[in-house]
């Protein structure tokens, strides 16, 4: 296991401590619940935006806390939903007179934990509501599972809701924006390698030296198929095709285009993908209004990438444009 780690059981609290130490003016860290909230506290005139999920997807979710983004977030162990109490305490800590919107990536463990937490909070009189994000087109809905997974599109839901909340929109309005983003955002990813959860110490799946997993999930869930690795342009075409045909997106659409790294892929390779994706978008008649190239929702040190398209309208464009600040920063 080629990792910077001490006791694997302490991996999550240790990196959260690092995030907190590095952002003393921005963030407030409660180790007991692996919870991070804005230092500036809750504004009762504004809807609070909350999220929480397994660790290993950073900068999602605790590194997405900050003005214009999340009000607070909690994390579970690597790839495991947080305990119910952590979710409950996060809602409680972020409780606002204007209400709390809980953005839940659509996984069974996360949904159950936030269900319980929201019920508990509601029972205490907190105005909390859940919204499920499910942008991954790789895996179709099925009778048996909880449905499509929530992946990198998550960033756009947070960004738009965070900005709307900042502007003082009410809970219904912010929820409507979450729905609009989720209805208009689609993602698919591809993995070239697996990753190793520190506590597990071994890869979560086996993959050949010349293979890739098309449509991989951010916990290493299998996707659509296992294939020989293709040239970057061909992979990009596959992702673009799958994503753009899903809603479908239409010629003339104004879009945000995201190439998200899964953790182990260097930024340059993401730009190789971006170059092709941008070209394909223009060929399809889309206008790329904003773009995002980097890490937004990762899977530990997995080498891989995902492509996200969000259809914009004037409202969403303005929300994406709005200022925001998180622990993920350059300067």
């Amino acid at each position: 296991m080629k990792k910077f780690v001490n006791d694997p059981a302490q991996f999550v609290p240790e990196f959260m401590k690092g995030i907190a130490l590095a952002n003393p003016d921005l963030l407030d860290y409660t180790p007991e619940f692996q919870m991070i909230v804005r230092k500036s506290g809750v504004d009762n005139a504004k809807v609070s935006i909350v999220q929480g999920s397994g660790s290993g997807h950073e900068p999602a979710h605790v590194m997405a806390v900050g003005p214009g983004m999340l009000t607070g977030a909690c994390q579970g162990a690597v790839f495991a939903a947080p305990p119910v109490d952590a979710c409950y305490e996060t809602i409680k800590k972020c409780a606002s007179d204007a209400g709390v919107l809980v953005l839940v990536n659509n996984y069974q463990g996360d949904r159950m934990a936030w269900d319980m937490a929201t019920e508990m909070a509601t029972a205490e009189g907190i105005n909390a509501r859940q919204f499920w994000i499910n942008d991954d087109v790789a895996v179709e809905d099925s009778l048996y599972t909880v449905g499509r997974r929530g992946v990198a599109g998550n960033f756009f839901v947070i960004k738009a809701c965070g900005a709307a909340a900042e502007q003082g929109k009410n809970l219904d309005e912010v929820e409507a924006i979450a729905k609009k983003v989720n209805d208009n955002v689609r993602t698919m990813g591809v993995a070239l390698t697996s990753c190793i959860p520190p506590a597990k110490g071994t890869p979560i799946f086996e993959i050949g030296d010349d293979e890739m997993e098309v449509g991989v999930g951010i916990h290493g869930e299998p996707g659509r198929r296992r294939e020989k690795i293709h040239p970057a342009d061909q992979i990009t075409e596959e992702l673009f095709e799958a994503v753009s045909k899903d809603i479908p997106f239409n010629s003339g659409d104004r879009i945000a285009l995201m190439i998200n790294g899964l953790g182990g892929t260097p930024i340059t390779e993401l730009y190789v993908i971006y170059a092709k994706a941008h070209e394909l978008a223009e060929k399809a008649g889309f206008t790329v209004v904003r773009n995002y190239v980097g890490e937004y929702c990762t899977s530990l040190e997995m080498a891989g990438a995902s492509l996200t398209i969000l259809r914009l309208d004037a409202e969403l464009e303005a929300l994406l444009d709005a200022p925001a600040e998180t622990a993920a920063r350059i300067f």
Partner: protein
Amino acid sequence: MAEISQEQVERAIKTTCATVLRNEHYFSDLDGLAGDGDFGTSLATGFRVIDKEWDQIDKTDIGAMLLKISMLVSKHVGGSSGPIWGTGFMKGAMLTRGKTAISLQDLADMLGSAIEGIQARGGAKLGDKTLLDALIPVHEVLKAHAAGDQDPGATLRDAADAADKAIDETRSLVAHRGRASQVGERSSGTPDPGIVAIATILQDWCKDRGIARTPKAAEVAKATA
């Protein structure tokens, strides 16, 4: 009418702590076969705290105790197991408020209520290859004995048999819930770790009460060896 004393319930919980802690890695390994390999760790994180804080846990009555246990699970167990086991203990607590002893029928009702709660929480049904596939037949056993011989020993042995049997009966199924459902067909042929955990706990309860029985599923044999 056979009574189960609070002391017996406490002893069963303590035994469960031992079972879960002893099998932390084994249960995780089983989860790793088709799921994400965290089941043992998730569960052990909670039961380690229950074990450690045992003396401070409110034991006014069975209900108070189970409520506290449910709270500790909610606080410390992540993943799907947190809500599932937390809900189970919570439902049991609600039916035992103020009681310091329960009948076999009470126990059957508690489990029935737990099953309902877990189903409402996670949406799984019989045959989805989850621990419900152990709990539901065990519930049938409890109901039958409560209405019949009321022999706690025989009940426990039959319950352990039922859970044990569920492992092999569900082995070839495809998981429809939890992370294991995400690998599709690949989960067929591997045992469900939640079912193994229930069977192992019941087998350890048998052992603790001196009820001789030999596990059938290799996984229970291994987990109780």
